[in-house]
C-alpha cells in the first residue's frame, strides 16, 4: 500500500490557500482542522454560521472553554480582540452576500465541472443540508477536502455526481490524500501529487480524464 496523506496534512495543504486578510468558514471534519494551519505571517478572520466572526483557536485546556463561545462544528473557541457576534439572518447574509472569501467543505463526490455532493447518499435517504448549501452557493471560493476514494475503493471524483448535489459548479480546488486538483473551464487540472504517487496512479483513481499541469509538482507542505 502506498502512503496517503493524513487528514491533518490535507487540511494543512488547504490552509495554504488562505491569503492574508481572508474571511474563512470551515466545515466539520477535515476542514475544521485547517484552523490550526494558517500560514505564518497571515491573519485570517474565521466565520462560523451560528453567529461569530474573528474568533480565536480551540482552547488548549477544557478549563478555558466557555459555553457561549462555540462554533458550528461543536468545538469551543477562544475569544479574540475584534471578534463580533450576530444572528442567523445576518450570518447567512454574509455567506450569500459574497462576504466570505473562502470556505473549505468535506465532499462525498465532486464532478468534473465542480459540482459538489456532500449532504446525503441514497442508502441513507435522509441527510443534513445544514448551512453547507448556502456556503457552497455563496462563498467566493469553495475548496473541497476529502479522501480521494471511499474506504471501499469507490471513486469520488466523477464525470457526474451520482448523489444529490449540494451546489452545481461551485468547487474550484480539490485537495485529497493523494493529489491537488484545480477545477478549470476545460476540465480538471492535476497540479500536485502526494510524495511517491505518479500521475498515472492518481488518474487510475479518478473517473474524468485529468489535464496534467505543465508545472506539476509534489505537494509542498
Amino acid at each position, binding site marked *: 500500500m502506498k502512503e496517503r496523506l493524513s487528514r491533518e496534512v490535507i487540511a494543512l495543504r488547504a490552509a495554504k490557500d488562505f491569503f492574508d486578510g481572508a474571511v474563512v468558514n470551515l466545515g466539520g471534519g477535515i476542514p475544521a482542522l485547517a484552523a490550526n494551519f494558517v500560514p505564518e505571517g497571515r491573519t485570517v478572520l474565521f466565520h462560523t454560521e451560528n453567529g461569530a466572526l474573528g474568533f480565536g483557536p480551540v482552547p488548549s485546556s477544557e478549563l478555558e472553554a466557555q459555553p457561549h463561545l*462555540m462554533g458550528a462544528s461543536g468545538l469551543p473557541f477562544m475569544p479574540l480582540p475584534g471578534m463580533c457576534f450576530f*444572528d442567523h439572518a445576518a450570518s447567512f447574509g454574509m455567506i450569500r452576500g459574497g462576504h466570505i472569501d473562502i470556505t473549505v467543505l468535506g465532499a462525498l463526490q465532486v464532478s468534473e465541472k465542480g459540482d459538489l455532493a456532500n449532504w446525503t447518499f441514497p442508502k*441513507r435517504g*435522509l441527510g443534513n443540508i445544514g448551512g453547507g448549501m448556502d456556503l457552497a452557493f455563496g462563498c467566493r471560493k469553495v475548496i473541497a477536502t476529502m479522501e480521494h476514494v471511499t474506504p471501499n475503493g469507490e471513486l469520488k471524483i466523477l464525470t457526474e455526481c451520482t448523489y444529490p*448535489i449540494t451546489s*452545481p459548479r461551485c468547487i474550484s480546488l480539490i485537495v485529497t490524500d493523494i493529489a491537488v486538483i484545480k477545477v478549470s473551464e476545460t476540465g480538471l487540472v492535476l497540479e500536485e501529487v502526494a510524495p511517491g504517487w505518479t500521475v498515472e496512479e492518481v488518474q487510475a483513481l479518478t473517473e474524468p480524464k485529468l489535464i496534467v499541469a505543465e508545472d506539476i509538482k509534489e505537494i509542498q507542505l
Partner: protein
Amino acid sequence: MAIQKIYKTPDEVVADISDGATIMVGGFGHAIDRPQTLIKALANKGVKNLTLISNSAGVAGKLGIGSLGGKPFIDEEILIENGQVRKVICSVPASLVMSKPNAFERLYREGKIELEYVPQGTLAERIRAGGAGLGGFYTPTGVGTLIERGKEKRTIDGKEMILEFALRADYALIRAYQADTMGNLIYKGIMRSFNAIMPQAAKTAIAEVEEIVDMGELDPEVIITPGIFVDRIVKILREEG
C-alpha cells in the same frame, strides 16, 4: 403603563399552547442556545400535532454535541419522541452520528412524521421575512438541486434564483441571556442565532432567560431584541443548564 410579561413558572408560560400549533424553536444546536426549559414544559403539557420550525429536528442534545464536556441537554427530540410532532421544517433532521439514529429518523422511516427540508440560510431568511412583514424573497441557494423542485424561478442580475416564502408561527420559544420587564433582550456570545430572529415572526413570543432585570438596567445601546417582539418571559430552570 401596566405591562405584565413575567411569568412565574414554565408551565404557566406555555399553558395556552394547544394541539396543532405551529411553533418556532430557537437556537442553533448548542446547549446554551436552546430553550430547554420551555421545550421541557411543552413536553410535560403533552400537546400534539405540532409543526416545529427549527434549525434541527433534535440532533445534538442526547449526544451531548454542543455542550461543554459532552453533557446531554434538552432539545426538540423529546417532543418528537413523545409523538407530539406532526411535521418539522428544518435544515438538520438526521442524527449527527449515523450509527445513532435520532427519534426523527425512526419516525420518518415509519412514515409517522413529515419533513420540509430548508437550507439553513434560507430558513433564517424565511423567518426574518416573516417577522418583517414580507411575503418571500428570491435566493440563489438551491438552484440546480433537489431544493428547487416546484419553486418559481427567475433570473435576476443574470443569476438564476428561486422564490422562497416567508415563515410565521403561532409561538416562538427562544432563549436569551437577560430580559428587562419590558421584554427587551440581550444575548451572550453565540446565543443570538435563531433566537434573535424568531420572536418577531410569531404571534406570541416566549423567552426563557438567565436573568430578569428592572427597566432601565439594560443599556439601550446594546439591546438586540426590542421588547415589543416579546410577549412572555420566564426564568431558566437551573437544572436545565
